[in-house]
């Protein structure tokens, strides 16, 4: 469980990708996402995955991304089976299944290298409403907190004799109640406490709050941005003509 929770927690690191402007990281992620979506052959999806892994290696997040991908691999097996059963060939079903892994990989690249603060700046840059930005960023920020809560709740209930692994499928589902109820209650308590704390610090008092940080593109951001667009365009041409 700790192992899985760890895959969702953003960790600040120094890497050539982490230091980029979050808008450039978003651009990279969108490009890779698009490549994943249009990959229709084994070679295409192979190239896309190779690029995703190369960027992940550069960002020093290969191990953490591997955990996320392993989790999504279970769904991709399901995608493979369903596509195969409805009449697609083994190769097409395989490409569609691996495409799902590539899509998850391309999006997790952005979230594993972008802090919730940077995410907030990007959303504000897109001029999204303040409340929407706050709600989204808070939700992202609280995912690891909820995971850790779930671990502590499971520990507490196991200490009271709850054996989650025992019993048939129905019994196992029933045994989730002692985990899920405290998890929801804790989340509700935490959100109401957060709302009160935010109000106490004048959240919403002005329509356009000022920001201490502003996004500025540095030279390296511009270089990476231009190179990535050129590389993306070249791959697009190859995918459609090659």
């Amino acid at each position, binding site marked *: 469980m*700790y*192992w899985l929770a760890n895959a969702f927690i953003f960790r600040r690191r120094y890497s050539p990708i982490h230091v980029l402007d979050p808008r450039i990281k978003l651009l990279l992620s969108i490009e890779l996402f698009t490549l994943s979506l249009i990959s229709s052959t084994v070679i295409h999806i192979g190239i896309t995955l190779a690029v995703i892994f190369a960027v992940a290696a550069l960002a020093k997040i290969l191990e953490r991304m591997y955990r996320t991908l392993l989790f999504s691999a279970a769904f991709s097996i399901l995608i493979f089976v369903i596509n195969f059963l409805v009449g697609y060939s083994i190769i097409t079903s395989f490409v569609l299944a691996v495409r799902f892994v590539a899509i998850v990989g391309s999006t997790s690249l952005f979230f594993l290298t972008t802090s919730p603060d940077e995410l907030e700046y990007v959303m504000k840059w897109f001029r999204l409403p303040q409340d929407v930005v706050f709600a989204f960023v808070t939700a992202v920020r609280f995912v690891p907190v909820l995971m850790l809560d779930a671990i*502590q709740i499971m520990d*507490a209930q196991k*200490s*009271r004799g709850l054996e989650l692994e025992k019993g048939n499928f129905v019994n196992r589902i029933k045994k989730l109640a*002692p985990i899920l109820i*405290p998890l929801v209650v804790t989340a509700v308590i935490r959100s109401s406490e957060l709302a009160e704390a935010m109000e106490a610090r004048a959240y919403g008092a002005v329509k356009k709050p000022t920001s201490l940080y502003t996004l500025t593109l540095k030279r390296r951001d511009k270089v990476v941005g231009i190179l990535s667009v050129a590389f993306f365009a070249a791959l697009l041409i190859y995918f459609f003509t090659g």
Partner: protein
Amino acid sequence: MIEFINVSYIHPTGVKALDDVTIQFRQGEVVAIVGANGAGKTTLVKHMNGLLKPTKGTVKVFGYDTTQQTVASLSRRVGIVFQNADHQLFSDTVEHEVEFGLRNFGFSEDVVKQRVEWALTFFGLKEYANTSPMMLSGGEKKRLCLAAVLAWDPDVLVLDEPTVGQDLLHKEKLEQIIRLLLTQGKTVILVSHDIEFLWPMQPRTVVMNRGKIVADGPASEVFTDDSILSSSRLIKPQLVELSQRLKLDSREVFDNIFTAKRWILSRVRCS
């Protein structure tokens, strides 16, 4: 009874939470585990019912290696009450909350009824038997968690920060309960930052710092040792401070408020 032999534990994040810990907990003693945040106190107690398994070394509970036992079988004898009550309560009524553990451990229906009745009466929760646990106050929730664990009568009771959110009256009640459990031969292990609560019980005191045990001895020795306290970022109990300011011999340190009162009154009368 509970034995840690050269136990190290490396957290999945890579942090070494326990570093070559060797310690024994004996029957019938009250032990306080103290130390700064992140010292490894909770990690240590989570090894006592098998929630965590050592990365290196062996933990034996009543002679059984914890790696060979389930959490449920160990929890039957080692009851842990965790810090956050909201992480444990889920039932529709207080009565059902206490029943939960008893049913998991397979107690018969009449024993379940008897134990629930006893636990709710003992902890002053009888009037809330049919109330939702969510409606209780923070202190009542904490007592309910304690009642829910004591109901199955474990041999060892581990309390993680038991005084958080408790008023003075309930702290005193908790102290009485601990003393009562000790008369029954139970072992009580307290993980706490509340030095003032621990001091009158004069527990065997284990000080942890960065995953290591840096001191293990009677409270009267540990809490009067300035070097241990400062290196572990602990503050001495007020009665120790008072004794030291009065320049008393270390053997004369006030162990509770009444001995301090007697000493002061005797000096006033003399003068």
